[in-house]
Every structure is written in structure tokens, then in C-alpha cells.
């Protein structure tokens, strides 16, 4: 690109690049035209009651069949959760969205946000399981769809993050060689295997090692595998943040008489984590999507219910529509996380706010 300075470069700038721009715009416009023609103009939005899917079959190839979404959205969103109780799963999704939305608003960035999340999770547990307040009990093996995805991701990251901080601190604990060695072994072992094999181990092998009569639910085992996996990756991110901090910060804190934990909590972590917010959120987003791998051990998360919905013979051939819906849902949540991250970065890089908690 540096050659743009000579005569030929000027030629390129004056004639060639507008041509390329024009060509690419045309290509884009054509693509958009064809997409909207498929998704809107020629789309089949609903099917007459009682009819079969022939109307959709006729449009196959040039028109989308959004009727499949109307037909299947409850299964995609809630899986095999008892039909009459699905309002509870819907409320759970609403709870999650509210919690995410609250976290997006800076007015709620204070310690009480943790409290809000805590009570939100209690409400979610009550709604999902039931068995109290006159709600019918629904065992975990009937859960499915979006609540599973949100639970796996949110709880997974909520537990993986503190674990990651402890592991990162342990890896730097020079005075405690055993703890340091354990932390290194944990990170390297987990990083070295694919998440799929970890899920398999959790789902198939773990029960073999447990004493007879012990049984941990499959969902919980997957959750555990997920926490361990995310923890190892996040630990490396946190460690990068710790390593970026000058030694003088530790010494300044120590010389003032702050204990190791006080220095860590008040001086070291706030700065170290701030440095790595983009990398942390990047990892968060990656793991949100990785929850879809639980389909291989037969847990009905959002991706699995979507796939299952397209397998029914009458609806075969309409997977595009379903996957577009799934993509939109995943995107909505991941984009929200990205927004929260941007705001956190902006807020913390402005030197006018202290994130020290009140005494």
C-alpha cells in the first residue's frame, strides 16, 4: 500500500479503487436483494390451520418458510419442558434478560448488583424446578431450550470467574510451590483437551468413579465440566492482567501494611482485571456459544432443540429458517455482552471514578 505515493499509485487511487468500490457495492446489493426476496417477498409466513407443509414445499428454494418457526418455537425455546408449565420457562428467560439489561445500565453498577443477580438466580431455580409455592415439580431431565443455554453459560461463567482468579493468583504464588504446581497442572491439563472430550468424561466416566448409589445429575455434570473448562481459559487471561501490573504496586501496598488479600482485592485485581476486560469478554462470548456442545451428551440446549425441530419428517428441508432464528438469539446475547464490556472499559478508563467499595 506504500506504493500509493508514486505515479502509478495515484492512478490506482483515482481509477481503480472507485471501480472496486462500485463492484463490491453492486455485489452486496445483489446479495441483499436476493436475501430479502427469499426472506420477505416470497416467504410463507403462516400455514392455514390443519393443512400440511405443501405450501412451504412449493416455495422451497426461493421463499423462506417462517411458518416453521411459528409451529416449532415453543419446542425450540423450551424443549421437553411440560407444555402446560412452559410459562415458567418463559419467565425464566425473561428473568435472565432483565438481569442482563440491568447489568447494561450504569446506574446499577454497585455491589448491590451481585445481590440482584443472587436473588434473580434463586427465583430462576424456583421457577425451573418448582415443587414449592404450588408449582409442579419438573425434574432437570425435562428441561430444555434457551433456559438450559442461559443457565449453563451464566452459572458456568459465574463460578468459573472466581475460580479463574484463584488459579491465576495461585500460579503466581512463589512462596507456595505445591499450590503453584497444582494450578499449573490444572490449567495445562484442561487446556490440552477439547471441551467435547471433557463433557464426555463428565457424562460417561465420572459416574463410573463415583461410589455406588451416588448420582450426580447429567446437567450438573455438564455444568461442572464447563466451569472447569472456562476456569482454565479465564485463569490465563487473568494471569496476563496480573503480569502486566508493575511490581511497584505490590510493594506500595505491602509497605502501607495491607495484607496479601487486602492488597489483592483493593489494589491488584481492580487494575489487573481492568487491563484485560476485552479479553475476558471475548472468552465469555466464546463460552456462551460453546455451551451448544452439550448436544453431544444429550442435553437439550437451544442448539439441540433447534436441530431436533428440523428433523421431524414433515419439517425437513426448513433448517435455514431455524438456524437463522438460533443465530439471532445467540447474537442478541453475545452482542449485549460486548456492549457491557465496552461500557465497562469506557467507564473504568475515565479517571473520575473509583471502583473502591465503600468501607
Amino acid at each position, binding site marked *: 500500500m506504500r506504493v500509493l505515493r508514486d505515479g502509478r499509485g495515484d492512478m490506482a487511487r483515482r481509477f481503480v479503487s472507485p471501480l472496486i468500490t462500485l463492484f463490491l457495492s453492486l455485489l452486496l446489493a445483489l446479495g441483499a436483494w436476493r436475501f430479502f426476496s427469499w426472506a420477505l417477498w416470497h416467504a410463507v409466513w403462516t400455514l392455514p390451520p390443519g393443512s400440511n407443509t405443501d405450501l412451504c414445499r412449493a416455495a422451497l428454494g426461493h421463499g423462506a418458510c417462517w411458518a416453521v418457526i411459528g409451529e416449532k418455537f415453543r419446542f425450540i425455546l423450551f424443549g421437553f419442558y411440560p407444555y402446560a408449565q412452559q410459562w415458567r420457562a418463559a419467565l425464566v428467560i425473561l428473568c435472565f434478560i432483565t438481569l442482563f439489561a440491568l447489568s447494561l445500565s450504569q446506574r446499577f453498577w454497585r455491589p448491590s448488583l451481585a445481590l440482584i443477580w443472587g436473588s434473580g438466580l434463586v427465583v430462576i431455580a424456583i421457577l425451573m424446578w418448582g415443587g414449592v409455592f404450588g408449582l409442579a415439580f419438573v425434574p432437570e431431565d425435562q428441561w430444555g431450550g434457551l433456559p438450559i443455554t442461559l443457565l449453563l453459560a451464566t452459572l458456568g461463567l459465574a463460578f468459573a470467574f472466581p475460580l479463574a482468579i484463584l488459579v491465576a493468583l495461585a500460579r503466581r504464588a512463589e512462596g507456595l510451590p505445591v499450590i503453584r504446581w497444582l494450578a499449573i497442572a490444572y490449567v495445562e491439563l484442561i487446556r490440552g483437551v477439547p471441551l467435547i472430550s471433557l463433557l464426555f468424561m463428565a457424562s460417561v466416566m465420572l459416574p463410573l468413579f463415583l461410589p455406588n448409589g451416588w448420582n450426580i445429575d447429567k446437567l450438573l455434570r455438564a455444568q461442572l465440566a464447563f466451569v472447569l473448562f472456562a476456569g482454565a481459559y479465564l485463569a490465563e487471561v487473568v494471569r496476563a492482567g496480573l503480569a502486566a501490573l*508493575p511490581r*511497584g*504496586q505490590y*510493594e*506500595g*501496598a*505491602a*509497605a*502501607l*501494611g*495491607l*495484607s496479601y488479600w*487486602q492488597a489483592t482485592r*483493593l*489494589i491488584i485485581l*481492580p*487494575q489487573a482485571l*481492568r487491563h484485560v476486560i476485552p479479553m475476558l469478554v471475548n472468552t465469555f462470548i466464546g463460552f456462551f456459544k460453546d455451551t451448544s456442545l452439550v448436544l453431544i451428551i444429550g442435553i437439550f440446549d437451544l442448539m439441540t432443540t433447534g436441530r431436533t425441530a428440523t428433523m421431524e419428517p414433515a419439517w425437513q428441508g426448513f433448517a435455514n429458517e431455524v438456524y437463522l432464528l438460533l443465530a439471532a438469539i445467540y447474537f442478541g446475547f453475545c452482542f449485549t455482552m460486548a456492549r457491557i464490556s465496552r461500557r465497562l472499559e469506557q467507564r*473504568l478508563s475515565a*479517571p*473520575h471514578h*473509583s*471502583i*473502591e467499595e*465503600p*468501607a
Partner: protein
Amino acid sequence: MTDRAESAVAFIDVHKWYGRVHVLRGISLSVASGERLVICGPSGSGKSTMIRCINRLEHHEKGRIIVEGMELSDDPRALAAIRREVGMVFQSFNLFPHLSVLDNCTLAPIRVRGLSRGEAEDRAMEYLKRVRIPEQARKFPPQLSGGQQQRVAIARALCMQPKIMLFDEPTSALDPEMVREVLDVMIELAESGMTMLCVTHEMGFARRVADRLLFMDRGEIVESGSPQEMFDNPRTERLRGFLNQILHHG
């Protein structure tokens, strides 16, 4: 022990190694309460290492160090007690950039001394006035000049109301025009009767406030005495060479 209990800091034949490098070779020293000690010597002679041993930012391997009657050891409670009584000012300030100047000053008094926020803020403002920057209390360290940052660092250490203050080349990282403002604050502090151990090459400062000057070289205390007699009659060749260098290039 009684004679040592009277001294603020006592080193008894202290040795330290970094790997196989012998950086402190038998330091013995007694600093009286209220004494103002200036330590000088060529770079790498072990000055920083020595004063950092006093609040155990470095561990010594042999010998004993007694601070305010408490011996330094692996006992975390003794260490915590000693750090409460010893303030330190670093060459690179080491302020906490994510906290305001005021929060930098109140953090340790609240968390370590158990002061209420109100008390801690009153005390912080008092010391910020003494270092002449009360108007910067709400700012953040990166918004201040080097000289201002170092004065905040001094105020932060003083807010713990320590019995002893350690300075490790507090003016070496500063632009020349800011050295004065920091030295003025240190002179005032010296005149208030604080026990001070200062590593510095500011010989004007040493001449003005030091009760005793210490010359270190290669991990040893080579010479000590009043600044006057050491400047006028250096007894060793090493000190003479050092003074020549400093006075002609410093």
C-alpha cells in the same frame, strides 16, 4: 536488648545474597529515634536492598534486624506490626492509579489502622496540606506532575503516622525543576523530628538535615559520620572518588 530497644532500627551483622551474589556483607547499624540518616554510595552498592530489608520487601538471609523493638522474622504478625510503624517512599512513587489522591491516602488508615472514613479523610487533608497540594485531593495520580505525585506519596505514607520513614532515591525520577518541591517537604519533615533513613545523592539535603551520613560500597558500610566531616575529610579512597564524581557530575 535494652540498648537496642532504644534505637529505632538496629542491624546486627546482616547478610543477603541474590543467588550467589553477596549484596549485603555484614551490615551493622543502629539508628536512634529521631535520627536523620542519609545513605549514599555508587549504584548497585546495596543501598536500596538495605533499607528495603527494614520493612521486609527484601528478606535478609543472615543476621538480625530489629525495628522499634520488634525483630523481623517470618512471623506475619510481627511483620504487620512493623509495617504499620514504617512508611516508605519509592523512587517510582508507586501510587495507586485507579484511586483518587484522597483514596490513596485514606486506604491504609481505614483498612490497616481501622479509622473511620471521616477521620481518615480529615487526616489525609491535613497531610496533603503539609505537602502543599490539598487542592489535588479529588484528582487521580496520572493527572499530576512527578513532583506532585511524589508529594502525594509522602503524604500517603505519613497518613499512617509511622514512627520511621524510609526514602529510596525519592527525587531521582523527577525532572530537575521538581526536585526542589519534594526536598522542601522532606526538609520540613526532618525538622519535625521524624526518624528518617534517606537514600539520596542530594548532598545539599544531606548537609542541611542529616545527623549522620553513611557511605556504602559493594554491600558494606565503608564510612559514616557527620556530613560535614565526611565531605571535608573523607577517610577512604572510595569515598573520595565517589564524592568527586557526585560533586562534579551531580
